[in-house]
């Protein structure tokens, strides 16, 4: 079991040191929300405020989401869990943040819970990445010996469906979409400004919530996240109507890994899969 209290103490201490020492100008981590079960993402700028930081099993947010808000050159310390650290790596690969600007506070954590239902969500999202892949300071201890299945295990049920059943499934899920765009806004990799959905010339999809516009939005977003999705599950968690977007992203990630031999956000030396090609790519991938 993850020692949340210990991590929290370490996080506060580390944030205080970094801010006092002037190594960073801000720390991105978690603070208490309106109650204990509902923490909020927070930014700490003064060492005295570091005591407000918390870390518990409900701190599911991917803090890498906030990195691209600050101009390049801002010295930032960011608290990241396993999958979140992959987002940082991916952002470095894409040149959105610089490694030198960051102090990565890695948090190995299992047993993270959904705030609404209290259900443990590890298996749904970051099954394989319990320990951060890149960090400067490790808060807590690395976790070993937890039997982590493949992150793609949850896909079996959907891959087993025939195409008509799959279409029926997604059609039903997308029908609920209210186009609040929480999925793209919660996503650490969705930093485009403007997003293709906000463009009016050309208008890629209807602005009103029609079914075909919703289909266009989600399918295109799945494509835009191809080779970049780091499987943090934020899109599904943010969705107010519980559309399991992470399943589709996982499927795309799985195919990318199989075809291009590289998972997103594992190594800062990698090039993003879709902005690259290799000599050994073959036409077989076109089916």
């Amino acid at each position, binding site marked *: 079991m993850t020692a949340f209290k210990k991590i929290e103490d370490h996080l506060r201490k580390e944030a205080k040191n970094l801010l006092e020492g002037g190594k960073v100008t801000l720390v991105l981590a978690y603070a208490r929300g309106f109650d204990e079960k509902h923490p909020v993402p927070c930014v700490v700028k003064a060492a005295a405020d570091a005591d407000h930081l918390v870390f518990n099993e409900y701190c599911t947010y991917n803090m890498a989401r906030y990195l691209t808000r600050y101009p390049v050159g801002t010295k930032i310390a960011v608290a990241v869990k396993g999958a979140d650290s992959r987002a940082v790596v991916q952002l470095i690969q894409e040149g959105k943040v610089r490694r030198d600007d960051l102090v990565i506070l890695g948090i190995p954590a299992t047993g993270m819970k959904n705030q609404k239902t209290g259900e443990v969500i590890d298996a749904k999202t970051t099954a394989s990445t319990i320990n951060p892949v890149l960090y400067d300071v490790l808060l807590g201890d690395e976790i070993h010996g937890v039997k982590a299945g493949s992150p793609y295990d949850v896909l079996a049920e959907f891959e087993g469906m025939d195409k008509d059943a799959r279409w029926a499934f997604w059609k039903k899920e997308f029908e*609920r979409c209210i186009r609040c*765009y929480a999925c793209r806004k919660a996503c650490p990799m969705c930093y485009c400004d403007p997003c293709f959905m*906000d463009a009016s010339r050309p208008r890629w999809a209807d602005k009103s919530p029609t079914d075909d516009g919703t289909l266009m939005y989600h399918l295109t977003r799945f494509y835009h996240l191809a080779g970049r999705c780091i499987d943090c599950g934020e899109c599904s968690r943010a969705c107010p109507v519980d559309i399991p977007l992470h399943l589709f992203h996982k499927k795309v990630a799985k195919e990318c890994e199989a075809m291009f031999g590289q998972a997103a956000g594992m190594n800062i030396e990698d090039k993003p899969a879709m902005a690259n090609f290799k000599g050994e790519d073959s036409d077989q991938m076109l089916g």
Partner: protein
Amino acid sequence: MKKIAIDQFSELVKVLAERGPLYAPVKGKEGVNFQAIKNPADVTLDFYNTVLSPKSVFFPQSEDMIRYRITHGATEAQPVPQESRPAVILGVRPCDVRSFEIMDRHFLGAGVIDPYWKSKRDNTTVIGFAFDVSAAADPADFYNTFGYGAADPEGSDVFMVRTDKALLLKSMTDRGKKLLDSLGFLQVAGAQDEKVFEETVKKGKAVRTRSAEINPQVIAKKLVSVFDNGEFWQKVTMACIACGACTYGCPTCYCFDISDEMLFKEGSRKRFWDACTFTDFTLEASGHNPRPRIFQRYRQKVCHKYSYHVDKYGCISCVGCGRCTRVCPVNIDIFSIVDEANKL
């Protein structure tokens, strides 16, 4: 006052659904939400509150205003006929019922009458439904702040209270009375039931949610005075990711966008929900955006609800249902922000 046994509730639903459009809570994968009822068995009364607000009954997320077609260079356009059948919305929680009155002030009381809202509102009977007064309120709720109780019948046409075996239905308006009178199979409630109803309303007053002293006139001025306090707004809205979940969940958010959408020479002019937190909400044709930053947009949301709305319509545009807090992906809590601003 009338009553009906709980096991006969589906009978009531069936009759109402046959007469005209009936909107009631239905359990879906995401939770319970209001839907137009096709199958009476879908309706559920086992819920705390719906995920999204009942405003969609009067103010659908997307609504055609004009439909048109282009033939040989000429455009034929027709306004979309408005629904005129009497409808019923059943199972609205007391705080949400108040939201209709607040929206009325905007859609009907601003000097211009909105025909889309009016036609639906005029034809719809609202059946309110008391919260379970023996249970605690959701931690996100704060309707006590506005003086609402968990079983306030005010605002509903008919108010419904659930007891162990029966549903008590009390008409609060003429429209409600007409509806109940037309439902011959309802039993007449006895003096004992009347007492239970009154007690429930009283107990509802004792259900505690989060609450703060917020005087509309005072908070309206206060927010204007802290408008320029960028540091405060940036601090409280830092987590905001600028999605529209809070707005779409809110029972009193009425901003909409209008767009012409056409396919193969046929199309419609639509109005559909928009959210002030979106990047392109204030984007002008020139490319200039007066509110480019998230804290500016969230500040607009708070100030609109708690300040500008008070100035214009005399009341706060919030009922404390707590939906914005519950659906927020990052748990931003408007109540805490207003409370904090109030204390500055």
